[in-house]
């Protein structure tokens, strides 16, 4: 019998699909049948087999009598593969994209009109605590106004203005299209101080801030590429950086080279660059296919008159 015909028999006898002339039956462990290459010790072979997808692949001795899938059906060899249970549910999104309270560094965040960026860390100004990220994350490249809702998670990750507002836009440093810029930063004030914590997801708590050294190893935790490690390749770069409104010049930037592949990707903007001794050293805001660019944290603290918590 051809594999296609044998498969119809299996559909009836294991999944309960009605076929004329056969008595339908089901097997509680079988979740699907198909046709594919037989795998032997995890390696696909040339042989075509009837594939049985099961919730759990058991040792032959543990299979109940009568439940065992025969070696061949209607002359076609069989192959059993564990597939778990098929479901219409999408996999649970990573925690970086989800709503988390108290919210912390590394998570998805954004002005209600942008896609999503990263919650950098908490900063302090006087008695008040603020969320630090980029202007282009919290203030929509300067198009936002004070009081605008800041969503966690960001809009791209399903954040909604009726239930996911974490903070209000407070202050941002304007981006200058004519003259060199030093920072792309903004702060937002949480509506409820209990909704935020000074931790950074998977990196723990910061121990203040300092300047980075050339060739120093650093890490970050961001919405898209999560925790990545890299090396500071430049601490006094002047660069042209593309924005939605055109290209801007940035001075006094640090450039980071990823240790294994890319250090960052779209959505990681706003991540704090952290030294191996737990100090904030930079604020990630841009990248090229090979490098990541961050503002120096001292310039950010000075421009916004804040201190890293």
């Amino acid at each position: 019998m051809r594999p296609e015909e044998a498969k119809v028999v299996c559909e009836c006898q294991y999944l309960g699909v009605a076929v004329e002339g056969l008595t339908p039956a089901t097997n509680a462990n079988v979740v699907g049948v198909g046709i594919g290459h037989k795998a032997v010790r995890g390696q696909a072979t040339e042989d075509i087999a009837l594939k049985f997808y099961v919730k759990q692949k058991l040792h032959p001795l543990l299979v109940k009598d009568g439940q065992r899938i025969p070696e061949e059906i209607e002359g076609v060899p069989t192959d059993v593969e564990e597939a778990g249970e098929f479901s219409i549910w999408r996999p649970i999104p990573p925690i970086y994209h989800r709503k988390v309270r108290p919210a912390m560094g590394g998570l998805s965040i954004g002005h209600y009109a942008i896609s999503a960026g990263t919650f950098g860390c908490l900063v302090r100004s006087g008695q008040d605590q603020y969320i630090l990220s980029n202007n282009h994350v919290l203030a929509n490249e300067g198009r936002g106004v004070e009081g605008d809702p800041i969503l966690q998670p960001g809009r791209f990750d399903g954040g909604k203005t009726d239930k996911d507002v974490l903070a209000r836009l407070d202050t941002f440093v304007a981006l200058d299209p004519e003259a060199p810029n030093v920072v792309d930063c903004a702060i937002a004030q949480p509506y409820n101080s209990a909704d935020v914590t000074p931790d950074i997801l998977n990196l723990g708590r910061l121990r203040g801030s300092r300047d980075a050294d050339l060739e120093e190893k650093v890490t970050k935790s961001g919405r898209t590429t999560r925790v990545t490690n890299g090396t500071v390749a430049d601490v006094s770069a002047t660069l042209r950086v593309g924005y939605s409104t055109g290209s801007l010049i940035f001075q006094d930037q640090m450039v980071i080279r990823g240790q294994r592949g890319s250090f960052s990707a779209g959505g990681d903007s706003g991540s704090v660059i952290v030294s191996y001794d737990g100090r904030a050293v930079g604020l990630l805001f841009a990248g090229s296919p090979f490098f990541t660019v961050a503002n120096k944290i001292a310039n950010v603290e000075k421009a916004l008159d804040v201190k890293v918590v």
Partner: protein
Amino acid sequence: MASVEEVKRRYEVRLMSTPGVVGVGIGRKDGKDCIRVYVEKEDPKVLASLPHALDDVPVEIVVSGAFKAL
């Protein structure tokens, strides 16, 4: 001798206005500080238009690609 920072400052505007150049910085090459020039792509014309050294400070050319806000 002028410091690498001074040399960078002196030539920065000129380098940044060279077509194909997207950044100028300071890096380390063979244990020595150097002027780093970031270029958008490996274009022989751009590479030929850049100096190997500026006021005795070596120049390292790095193909970075274009920088974009993330």
